[in-house]
């Protein structure tokens, strides 16, 4: 029996990965997502360093979602060492975090994914044909950039987060300078969301059986929480590693995860949407309903719907923060380091980001474990690719490899993989 394979580099995703198609005699047998990017061993690098240094080092794991890493690390130590974060500083931190979600969603929807929806090969092509869309994308992009800069110091690897809160509350006048454009950003977010909702019509509609995992928050759409929601039950973040099973395969430099029972699960916007739809603003829910979207979303291609909805939601939340912003004096912070094990989790743009640190008697990190969302989604990427091909009836032979690869790449892009994170 002849087995042939075909490999192609993943494009319009963050980082270096390949798709490998494995063909049997007639049909495609398997899809593999090869993570070929070289690992950086950040968990090793953290060893021997003080917890106060960790948010800064963790942030270098990802240039797109560095705030997620900073907040996950900072909250892990704060909760575990009973360090109180003043309300105003926490609000500012959340605003920076929300700005990061906005930035990441803009990058993904407009620069990476839009070409798939419109059937072209790059956003540059999309923009050439739609100058209005380009203008809107640029305005929105620049606003998120400005927000990150004013609140955090720069666009990524921001400098304003530490254990215990922030370093500085920016001047009210600087923050208010974001307000004028905030209205426009909300309009842009709504327009973009509507544009996406209208165009998703073109995407596949088959129903998938999907197990979703996400943080939950009783009031807000979740970004930071101690509770994880899975399969109709909740558990504390400290129990996360007991709920999942790690695996390593020869073709991936990223570790991969299933649930402890061996189930494939999904993290990310589609999971947040499905578990926390009712925590979205009334305005966003209404827009979604008018296009016929309600939870749960049962096709991975609807990730883009969740992402657009989040873009809208987070723009509203950031605008609220700006309008009610009141800076206070940031007090000096003396962090008393205690030995112990510390857990933290946040909803990074791509899903649950989990941190665990063991601090020893010398007050330095002895062991770190970081599980990024992309690593958790890798098995689902392969499984959903096969489901997709089967639903399209596109299982046939090697002569179809280009078309098959194109469809597989589309599925993978719906997860918005951040490969650098996965090989931290």
């Amino acid at each position, binding site marked *: 029996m002849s087995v042939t394979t075909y490999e192609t580099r*993943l494009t*319009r995703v963050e980082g270096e990965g390949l798709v490998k198609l494995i063909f049997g005699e007639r049909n495609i047998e398997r899809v593999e997502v090869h993570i070929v990017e070289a690992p950086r*061993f950040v968990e090793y690098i953290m060893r021997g360093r003080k917890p106060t240094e960790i948010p800064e080092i963790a942030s*270098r794991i990802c240039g797109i979602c560095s705030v997620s890493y900073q907040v996950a690390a900072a909250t892990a130590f704060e909760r575990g060492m009973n360090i109180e974060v003043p309300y105003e500083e926490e609000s500012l931190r959340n605003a920076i975090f929300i700005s990061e979600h906005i930035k990441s969603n803009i990058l993904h929807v407009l620069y990476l994914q839009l070409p798939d929806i419109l059937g072209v090969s790059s956003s540059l092509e999309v923009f050439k044909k739609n100058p209005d869309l380009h203008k809107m994308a640029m305005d929105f992009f620049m606003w998120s950039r400005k927000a990150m800069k004013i609140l955090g110091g720069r666009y990524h690897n921001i400098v304003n987060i530490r254990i215990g809160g922030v370093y500085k509350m920016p001047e009210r006048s600087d923050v208010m300078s974001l307000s004028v454009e905030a209205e426009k950003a909300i309009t842009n977010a709504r327009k973009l969301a509507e544009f996406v909702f209208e165009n998703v019509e073109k995407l596949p509609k088959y129903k998938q059986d999907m197990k979703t995992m996400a943080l939950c928050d009783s009031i807000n759409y979740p970004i930071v929480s101690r509770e994880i929601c899975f399969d109709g039950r909740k558990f504390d973040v400290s129990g996360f590693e007991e709920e999942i099973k790690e695996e*390593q395969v020869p073709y991936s*430099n990223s570790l991969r995860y299933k649930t402890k029972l061996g189930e494939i699960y999904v993290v990310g916007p589609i999971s947040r949407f499905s578990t926390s739809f009712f925590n979205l603003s009334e305005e966003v829910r209404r827009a979604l309903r008018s296009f016929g979207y309600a939870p749960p979303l049962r096709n991975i291609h609807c990730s883009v719907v969740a992402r657009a909805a989040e873009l809208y939601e987070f723009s509203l939340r950031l605008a609220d923060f700006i309008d009610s912003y009141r800076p206070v004096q940031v007090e000096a912070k003396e962090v008393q380091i205690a030995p112990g094990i510390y857990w933290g989790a946040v909803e990074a743009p791509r899903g649950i980001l989990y941190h665990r640190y063991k601090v020893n008697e010398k007050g330095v990190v002895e062991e770190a474990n970081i599980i990024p969302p992309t690593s958790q989604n890798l098995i689902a990427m392969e499984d959903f690719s096969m489901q997709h091909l089967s639903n399209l009836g596109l299982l046939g032979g090697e002569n179809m490899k280009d078309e098959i690869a194109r469809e597989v790449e589309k599925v993978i892009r719906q997860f918005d993989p951040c490969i650098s994170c996965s090989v931290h």
Partner: protein
Amino acid sequence: MNKLRIGVEKLTSCSGCINEIIYALLADPKLTESLEIAYFPELLDKKSLEGQFDIFFVEGSIVNKDQIETVEDIRERSRLVIAVGTCSTYGGIQSLRDKKGVEEVKKHVYPKPELIDVEGDVYSLQEVIKTDLAIPGCPVDGNLLLRVLRKIAIGSKDISITESLCAECKRKGLECVLVKKKIPCLGPITAAGCGAICPSFGRGCIGCFGLRKDISSKEIENFANRLEEAGIMKKSDVLSFVMRFSYAKEKGYFEKIVEERGR
């Protein structure tokens, strides 16, 4: 006028600089008009390197043979190769695992370390090929990149200025956090370029733009001694701080420091 043919490659990194490169390439529509973005897998569906390039931006550090081959190929095809960001310029934060025995390092992260294709130490781009320009920063400043691109587009060259971050604090009229507040700050030995972000947030410079090009290991040592004498920070902590972003700049020296510390 012929369009400038641009390529962008990412090696071992966090992709933060990729965002800044996207910004620099797209922020000014007039400039974008004069460019042909010919290779940039993060942005385009083009899968392989073809033809010659006017400017190639390389982001990230180098850790295996494939990457060495890639950058050698890029060098042959390109008129100008620009190292973008601290990883590409000085190895970046991942170089802290340099010289620790890569097999040992792998064991700390992977249950099956033998499956991981990382061969040895961490190299900056400049250690592997000749670069025409290196622009550090973690992340690199997109506006700085934009200015360089504009200069090249009109046939000019970048003039590299070597000055400390301190100069930027002075220009901005910021109170010195090191002298006035005794907050550890790497400003005096760090390359300017970010606009003194950390001091403007009331904290010391973390050195993410890398050491000033003309700083020697002797001067790093002097600086660390001074901070210790002034009771601001222990010498070993200062050095451990400096090497986070500049390891490959003074590899021999930092290697010795780490050995002495015995960890």
